[in-house]
Structure formats: structure tokens, C-alpha cells
């Protein structure tokens, strides 16, 4: 059971470039989330999804887009990379939306130069 898998683990982008962070889970969870963690800070929610075809903004959505075409996959798209998007990104999933823990991927460390 792989859980939540994120790719890539590391990436360096130049300002203005775009990329997609991949996330897939094999636990058949309905809820999926993208967080970012900046140094010395807690995790901030970027986007979330309550099921295939349904996504919504979290606390810090600007500069990002998501899609959820299947239950398993929840990719995060950066269209025009900026230095402020340098961070560690975590994808997570949970079986339901209330009073349950989330399962996290290993994270993607992104640097924008």
C-alpha cells in the first residue's frame, strides 16, 4: 500500500516557468489537499478537493491551479513561477471531511530562482 505519492521530490524552476506537481493516492480517499510549508511556519492550505470533479480554494491559492479528474490524482499547477513560491509542498488525503486524520505524501521541495 503506497499511500500518497508525490513527484518530483525536488525541483528548481526559473522565474516565469511553469510546472505540475503530481499527487496520487491509492486509498480511495474522497478528500485531497495541497499544502505548502515555508521555513518556520505551519502548513498552509492551497487547494482542496472533496471528490472527483470538485475543487475549491484554500487559504493561499494565488498563483496555483488544480484539477481532480479521478479519485486517485490531484495535480497542482504553477503557471508563472515566482520566488515567493519557493517552499515545500505536501499533498494529503483523508477518507472523509470531518474529524479524521490526513495522510501526507513525502513532499516536493521547490526552489524558484
Amino acid at each position, binding site marked *: 500500500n503506497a499511500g*500518497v505519492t508525490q513527484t518530483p521530490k525536488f525541483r528548481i524552476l526559473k522565474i516565469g516557468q511553469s510546472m505540475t506537481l503530481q499527487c496520487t493516492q491509492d486509498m480511495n480517499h474522497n*478528500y485531497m489537499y495541497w499544502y505548502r510549508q515555508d521555513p*518556520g*511556519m*505551519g*502548513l*498552509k*492550505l492551497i487547494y*482542496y478537493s*472533496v471528490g472527483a470533479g470538485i475543487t*475549491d480554494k484554500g487559504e493561499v491559492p494565488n498563483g496555483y491551479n488544480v484539477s481532480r479528474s479521478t479519485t486517485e490524482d490531484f495535480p497542482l499547477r504553477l503557471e508563472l513561477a515566482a520566488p515567493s513560491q519557493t517552499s515545500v509542498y*505536501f499533498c*494529503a488525503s*483523508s477518507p472523509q*471531511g*470531518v*474529524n*479524521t*486524520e*490526513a*495522510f*501526507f*505524501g*513525502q*513532499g516536493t521541495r521547490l526552489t524558484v530562482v
Partner: protein
Amino acid sequence: DQQVKQNSPSLSVQEGRISILNCDYTNSMFDYFLWYKKYPAEGPTFLISISSIKDKNEDGRFTVFLNKSAKHLSLHIVPSQPGDSAVYFCAASEYRGYQKVTFGTGTKLQVIP
């Protein structure tokens, strides 16, 4: 506005002794609290949780205490082991159409052999 605060960035404890990690929150609408543990280069993993209707939850060496009147949460680890050395995140959630989880900034625990 930091609604979940972990005021101690780090904590060192001798192996075998008790580790106490503290967390304060300001939002009275939080109704579920979680602790996550994070090792370097890995995603957070769920440790223990507590509902707002309880004041204590125990799981092996880990106990979480909730004092609603003081808006204070603590995690006790007894006895502490070197493998417990990690960053611990306190998290609090409220239901706002989805489980909105707010994370603290983390406390780095070092257990000294």
C-alpha cells in the same frame, strides 16, 4: 493572525523522561485537535487526536490533554525515546463545508540518549 500557536520552537529531553509539548489556540470554533509528527525529508504522519468533547486521549506512550477553558492543548510522551526526535505539529480543525485544519508552526523535539 496565528490561530494555533506553538510557542516553543524546540525542546530537549533525556531518554526515559517525559516530553511535554504545548499548543494554544484562539478560535473557539475548533472542535477537533490533532498532533502530527514529522521527520526530515518526510511528510507529517498522524500521531493522536482529541475531540473537543473530551479532555484526555491516550494511545500507548502518547497522551493528549485538552483544556477548553484555557484554549490549551498538550502532548505528553512517556517515556521519551530517541526515535521520538522529530518536529511535532499541533493542528486544530473546524467544519466549514470541509474540514478546515489550521496548523501550528511546530516544536522540534530532541530526545537525548
